[in-house]
């Protein structure tokens, strides 16, 4: 018997971490209790992207969106919505305190402005069921490619679409495929790079979790175009759910004969192997990744000979990332023209001429709605931050947007109307990267943030070449010096000099782009650096070593009645004062840890 209602419970990593599996189990139990198990189905889906409000459940066909669910809410929800037909307002999304709750998913701003290509099946299908993918038109792109198109036509279609590598570089995918196709030889590989390493970025994981077959189909089409018979997916082992779904998907595809020999009765054969990465950031670099697959240390090598000529095991190898592969089936299915309608620029003659299609970003930082968003190329940063992201938290002022992860750069508020595409971002010193987008507000110190990213890159540097190993470490040291008030203006010069040198001479892109956060921050926020080195002050009060903590004695005495909390919290015993009387801080003893600031309930601690 068909079901009348489907409960789409999000089982992306974010929601699973928030007990969505438990919610699913409770739902099933509750439905059974009410005798609804034959009428109402519970489906686990991939990530919906709105991870900030997980766990999420969508009730279909009504399209009611529930957020922040707890398993204790379930009996009430089932009773109200599923039996009595009354959607429960208190679990719905509320954009702001003043506004009423929005019951329907499609009406929520976060979802409204998104254009879904790579994530088109998210929340709609059970990623562990190939039938549902097929029902959504899955594998018809492959069918079309195999039966109606020659390999060259496939490559040409991708080339025409203007699809560019979503992993960061933005290299036109079609050109890459074409180059690979031209290299002679029988053995050639395609690789899906699922070694997503940028902190805070999780679009690849999300795509695999919600729609693994899209990736498989993309690889199949690519392999057909380029004449490869063996594919690899290099996925980090820290993505257990993605890995499991991918393994299941591959098994299902094999069962259906969509992987293996004589696919759709043609001569085409293709198989996929999964290689689990150990999570080194540098292994996201193509040559390091291939070295890792080969069982060698994950170190990059010089790419004066491209991997499409000599890649994995020295055979021609085409590596694309998850999102790129996931776009391919749609392009083949709906045609290049459809794809070029979305995005910026003109790619009819020059594949570098624009950015087409959509890009998935992971929106994090000081924005109201955090999560994964797929937006058309050319959308402005402002739209992403304010319309989709719901603006800055707590009504603060935006300071900068950091795009492209640790290799990207800071974009100041003045440039918020910048259309987001590969070339525009690069022009301002940042990059698209794999799609990280971190919003910084006025409480964020630019030096501190640059230091954060540098710390990441210097720790993740493989250590092979000197500029990256020694250089990023020195850059970090200088930033550290600046953040504790030991920096000089010469240091800033040296930092810049060193940064440019590292960009120029590093062996791979990790080193070559590592200084981007420093360079862009120096470019757009020079003043803030100068304040750090000249006045030894941090305007955002984030560099604690530059802060001076004092106690407003009046507040302390009258409002807080000398509660002693700060005194107890101070690890240096630097706070004095009798209970019920005003306290004060001995600046000589204070190590500026900020514990008292966090401890005070009355905002009596002042920071300067």
């Amino acid at each position, binding site marked *: 018997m068909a079901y009348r209602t489907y409960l789409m419970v999000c089982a992306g990593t974010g929601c699973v971490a928030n007990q969505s599996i438990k919610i699913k189990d409770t739902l099933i139990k509750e439905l059974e209790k009410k005798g609804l198990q034959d009428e109402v189905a519970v489906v686990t889906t991939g990530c919906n992207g709105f991870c900030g409000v997980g766990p999420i459940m969508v009730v279909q066909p009504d399209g009611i969106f529930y957020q922040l669910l707890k398993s204790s809410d379930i009996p009430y929800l089932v009773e109200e919505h599923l039996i009595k037909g009354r959607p429960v307002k208190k679990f719905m999304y509320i954009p702001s305190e003043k506004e009423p709750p929005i019951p329907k998913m499609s009406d929520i701003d976060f979802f409204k402005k998104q254009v879904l290509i790579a994530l088109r099946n998210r929340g709609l299908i059970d990623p562990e069921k190939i039938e549902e993918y097929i029902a959504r038109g899955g594998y018809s792109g492959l069918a079309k490619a195999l039966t109606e198109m020659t390999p060259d036509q496939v490559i040409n279609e991708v080339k025409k679409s203007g699809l560019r590598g979503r992993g960061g570089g933005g290299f036109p995918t079609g050109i890459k495929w074409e180059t690979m196709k031209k290299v002679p030889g029988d053995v050639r590989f395609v690789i899906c790079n699922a070694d997503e390493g940028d902190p805070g970025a999780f679009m690849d994981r999300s795509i695999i979790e919600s729609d693994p077959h899209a990736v498989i189909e993309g690889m199949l089409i690519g392999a057909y175009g380029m004449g490869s018979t063996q594919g690899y997916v290099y996925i980090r082992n820290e993505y257990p759910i993605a890995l499991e779904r991918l393994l299941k998907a591959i098994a299902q595809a094999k069962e259906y004969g969509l992987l293996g020999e004589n696919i759709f009765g043609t001569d085409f054969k293709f198989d996929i192997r999964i290689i689990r990465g150990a999570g080194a950031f540098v292994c996201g670099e193509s040559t390091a990744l291939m070295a890792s697959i080969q069982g060698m240390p994950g170190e990059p090598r*010089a790419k004066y000979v491209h991997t499409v000529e000599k890649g994995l095991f020295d055979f021609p190898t085409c590596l694309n990332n998850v999102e790129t592969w996931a776009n391919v089936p749609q392009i083949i299915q709906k045609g290049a023209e459809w794809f070029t309608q979305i995005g910026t620029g003109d790619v009819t003659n020059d594949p570098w001429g624009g950015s087409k299609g959509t890009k998935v970003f992971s929106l994090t930082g000081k924005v109201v709605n955090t999560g994964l968003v797929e937006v058309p190329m050319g959308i402005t940063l402002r739209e992403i931050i304010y319309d989709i992201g719901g603006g800055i938290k707590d009504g603060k002022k935006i300071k900068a947007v950091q795009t492209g992860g640790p290799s990207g750069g800071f974009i100041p508020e003045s440039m918020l109307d910048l259309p987001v595409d590969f070339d525009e971002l690069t022009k301002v010193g940042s990059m698209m990267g794999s799609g990280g987008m971190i919003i910084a507000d006025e409480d964020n110190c630019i030096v501190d943030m640059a230091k954060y990213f540098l710390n990441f890159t210097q720790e993740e540097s493989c*250590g092979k070449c000197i500029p990256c*190993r*020694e250089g990023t470490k020195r850059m970090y040291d200088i930033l550290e010096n600046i953040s504790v008030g030991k920096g000089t203006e010469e240091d800033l010069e*040296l930092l810049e*000099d060193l940064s440019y040198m590292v960009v120029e001479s590093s*062996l791979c892109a990790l080193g070559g782009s590592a200084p981007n956060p420093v360079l862009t921050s120096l470019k757009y926020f020079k003043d803030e650096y100068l304040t750090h080195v000249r006045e030894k002050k941090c305007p955002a009060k984030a560099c604690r070593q530059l802060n001076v903590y004092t106690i407003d004695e009046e507040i302390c005495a009258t409002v807080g009645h000398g509660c002693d909390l700060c005194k107890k919290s101070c690890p240096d015993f630097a706070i004095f004062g009798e209970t019920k009387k005003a306290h004060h801080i001995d600046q000589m003893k204070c190590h500026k840890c900020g514990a008292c600031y966090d401890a005070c309930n009355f905002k009596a601690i002042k920071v300067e």
Partner: protein
Amino acid sequence: MERSIRMVTVNIDGKKIEVAEDTTILKAAEAAGIWIPSMCYSDLLEPYGVCRLCSVEVIRGKRSRIVTACNYPVREGLTVNTNSDKVKWIRKILMELMYSRWPNVPVVKEMAERLEVTKPRFVSLERDESENACILCGNCVNICRDVVKASVLSFEGIGIERKVVLPFNEQSETCISCGACAYVCPTGHIKIKSLETERGALQDFYLGPKSAINIPTLQAVPRVPVIDKNSCIKMQTGGCGICSEFCEPGAINYEMKDEEVDIEVGQILVTTGFNLFDPQQIPQYGYGRLDNVYNSLDFEFMLNSTGPTGGTIQCKDGSEPRAVGIIHCVGSRDENYKKYCSRVCCMYALKFAHLVKDRTKAEVYQFYIDMRAFGKGYEEFYKRLLDEGVNMIRGKVAEITEESYNGNKPHLLVKCEDTLIGKFREIPVDMVILCPAIEPAQDAAKIKKILSISQSPDKFFLERHPKLDPISTMTDGIFIAGCAQGPKDIPDSVAQASAAAARILSLISLGEVSVDPIKANVIEEFCSGCRICNNLCPYTAISFLEDKKISDINEMLCKGCGTCVAACPASAITGKGFTDEQILAELEGLLTV
């Protein structure tokens, strides 16, 4: 796939250079006499490209690009600038980074000076112990993995924590001690800990470093080089293989292996020779501990005109010895070591004395117990030596010590009692030659087991009869000759071997052999195949017939000892000549009287 080499013209610093396509910029520049700095480049390895000092600017049209010269392949029309401001700027900062991290490493210092970096802008990181001169160029790791194929060394840690380590930071068994890593290390950080070469352990006249390919001994027949399997990298790890590239006739074959060849023979002559007694067992003689104390074989090697000294007799420091002591009976005729006389030492000791006299002005002292110059012309030679002025001291040497008087260079002091004059003497010499005992070959016991022959109590092989049949053994068809049977000199060995050969030949020409009639055999009707007798026979004459499920005795192998006869619980084995009935009858007869 044969690929014709295409020559291309490239422009390096304004010079037009014609080189083969795909040559690296570094090599092309080198050909043109242009120096490009590099710290990690090694001709032996694929460029690893880590120091980046060889960064150069490649200009294509208006666009220029920084690449590393060590691994950038040249193409037609490439324009390279190795000395632009940008290049200099990059090199300078790189050098600053390196210099500040390894301020005490000479090669880094040198390079820094050459690149005019005197005071780096970075804080000197002397957190590295001054000994740590590893600049992480990776050459050692790469040569170990790619060339030697041992993969012993590897990097550990990433980023600034990267370092070169052995597996689990322990001396690895995989390391074949080839020394390739030390060879490619640009800073000399890798040192080879020399394994203490113990003199006594010197084998095959090994007196110094030698290549993995060598001619085993000077008199080797055939005189062709062989590969020492234990030190050849190719044999150990499958790496290297340079010699085969080098050898034009293609004579090098790594596939050759020691193989066991089964050859069916009717007779065997065992001439497995002897071992030289290790004088280190007599510590008071100082062999292996004191310089200039040699054993006879060392000295023989020194005397050899193709030996390490070209035949001159000299002390370790190269000086001519002023006096030489030759000590007889080292280990022979000694209750504590070998009780027997080694027979050859007296005469070769006299020969040594003669040669020392002949080649140097040194005084020669012979320390002997008894002179045994028993052979033809031997006594005459002894007489001649006495005439030559060799000092003969009758007495067993007690000790050899190293002494030094008044700060002069140390010499050796031989202490012994001169039994002829009844006085204790201390004789200063510069060199001592020990004449060690001849002892049975070290694997004699193994050979004994294989061939089922016997050893006499001194462990030499036992002859059938000491007087009447000194060349055959108790096992028919197996003969012995030379020092395998007992110490003897060359004439005796030749005589014995010839006799053995003659015996063998006579048997061959006879075409058949007669065997002793005392044999055991299995009575099939009574054997039930319990297999108790199966491993009793040292001559493996007993086998188990799987088809009949009974045991069987090969009469040709059987020596008739009768052990199996006694053991057979079914009395199914009888011993011809010594049957149960016969022995019992004998008993009956003996005991009734």
